[in-house]
């Protein structure tokens, strides 16, 4: 479609020279009408789709502000009267959402920092340094990327149980720090960097760690940002692993905290929706303001994976 518009622009600039041709004008007019028609159809379809994306959220918001009895009325009221902002206070004090937040942020930050650090060091080693066994080790990394998580989860669970890490933050953080995928992605990116700067740095007497830290990392900010985003989101949304290794309420992350909130108030919909919004809102805000960034990150990280 964008091609058509480019075409149009060219045609318009040439138009005066041919303006005398009636047939030409007619065909241009037909094309314009067709394009406008197409745009209207596209907008209509996109708006209908967009409504179905948004309406569940509005329903969630509306429910979260209703009086408990008001959810069971027919037809449903969309704008609750009175608006029960108190639901949010009740949800907030029903389970320690504040604590879940802190846990999620802390764990996600630690996992992300650790993963970016160990992955980028290893990736630099794979991409630029020569040492015996390098390519075989890298092949080993590649081979494990397809192994289902549940295969490794069981022995890791037993290992952590043996060393007494179950129900600790260590169990949430340490296994998440090492990632074959992150190493692979960064290695691919590093391979594509020009070597000139590194050679120059070498001549200036820069150490290998200095090259990694001062040359490679600054050149790789887009890839690092992508890995950071993916890792952070992955840790933030991780459900099964925290569910397995965490028991005590004050160490729960948001997803499993919200799940146990559901366990306590199974059908108290106003409260459940208020709790869900408490969990969703900050993420939505961060996303809406960094929308472009997310899209770029996906394009960079997705195609290479």
């Amino acid at each position: 479609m964008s091609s058509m518009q480019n075409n149009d622009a060219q045609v318009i600039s040439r138009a005066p020279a041919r303006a005398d041709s009636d047939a030409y004008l007619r065909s241009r007019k037909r094309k314009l009408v067709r394009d406008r028609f197409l745009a209207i159809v596209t907008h209509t379809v996109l708006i209908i789709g967009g409504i179905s994306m948004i309406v569940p959220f509005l329903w969630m918001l509306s429910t979260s502000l209703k009086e408990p009895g008001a959810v069971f009325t027919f037809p449903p009221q969309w704008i609750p009267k009175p608006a029960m902002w108190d639901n949010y206070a009740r949800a907030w004090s029903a389970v320690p959402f504040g604590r879940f937040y802190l846990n999620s942020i802390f764990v996600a930050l630690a996992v992300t920092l650790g993963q970016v650090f160990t992955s980028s060091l290893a990736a630099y080693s794979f991409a630029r340094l020569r040492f015996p066994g390098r390519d075989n080790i890298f092949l080993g990394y590649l081979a494990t990327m397809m192994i289902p998580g549940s295969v490794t989860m069981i022995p890791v669970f037993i290992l952590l149980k043996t060393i007494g890490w179950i129900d600790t933050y260590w169990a949430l953080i340490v296994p998440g720090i090492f990632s074959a995928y992150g190493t692979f992605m960064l290695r691919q990116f590093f391979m594509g960097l020009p070597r000139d700067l590194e050679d120059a740095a070498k001549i200036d007497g820069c150490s290998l760690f200095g090259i990694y830290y001062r040359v490679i990392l600054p050149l790789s900010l887009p890839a690092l940002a992508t890995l950071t985003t993916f890792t952070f989101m992955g840790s933030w949304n991780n459900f099964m692993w925290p569910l397995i290794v965490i028991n005590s309420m004050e160490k729960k992350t948001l997803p499993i905290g919200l799940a146990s909130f559901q366990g306590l108030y199974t059908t108290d919909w106003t409260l459940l929706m208020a709790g869900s919004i408490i969990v969703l809102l900050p993420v939505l805000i961060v996303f809406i303001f960094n929308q472009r960034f997310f899209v770029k990150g996906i394009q960079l990280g997705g195609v290479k994976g």
Partner: protein
Amino acid sequence: MKRFFNRLTSSETVAGYTFLLPNFLGFLLFTSLPVLASLVLSFMDWDILTPPKFAGISNFVTLFHDKLFWQYVGNTLYLMANIPITMVGALLVALLMNQKLRGIVIYRTIYFLPSVCSGVAVCLLWRWLYNPDFGLINTMLGQIGIQGPDWLSSTTWAKPALMLMGLWGAVGGMNMILYLAALQGVPPELYEAAEIDGANAWQKFKAITLPFLSPTTFFIGIMAVIHGFQGGFMSAFIMTNGGPAGSTTTIEYYIYNNAYQWFKMGYAASIAWVLFIVVLIITLFNWRFGGKLVQYN
């Protein structure tokens, strides 16, 4: 030998191993050794409390005759029917969004919203939407005279309900963005040339767009299949507890139950390994035969 030794102690080699070490230790401890450990475990009976007992291949024999396992395999495959549906949906949305329209950023943000939301909150929301008496879906169906089913408590409707939720969450997400990026990489000259030759929109789509998208389609498809086999745990755990009558329990859920609810570690490991082998075979198959359909430029 001397040269080999020299290479081992050269500064680059030392640096190489040192930089690799933190990651490699983690890789050994949390990935490669556990893979072997779970293979060993799959030939054992172990409830964690008492010492493990060697069980030979009995876990695999039991698994082969385990009616529940086959039911859950069926559930997993059924839910994976969502993969092509979601991919077509994502492609359609990407095609619409690839046009120069006003407000395209707003559309893109709105369509992407569901996929950034934490899964548990979305599952709670949909459990409420599917509420048989007061949920939005049945209320709306009621207004056009249709008596909606009790979605999540019906063995017929629970899986389609989960799939619809999955479609809603994924149609404007990562895959759509990947398709959009691929669409923007198609050279406009090709369309212009095709127009001059009098090709209509469908012919242009078939002859130019689809071939250009084939590497993306291949990538998305392979990843979706790998994830699909291991999927379905969270939504079933939150929304249906795997029911009714096990109709939404997937392989992953069964592994979870065996390992962490019933502490049948050996049996769980054997299921996980079977899953691994199946994923491996299917991915290799996809690579071998799906790869032929891909046209790289």
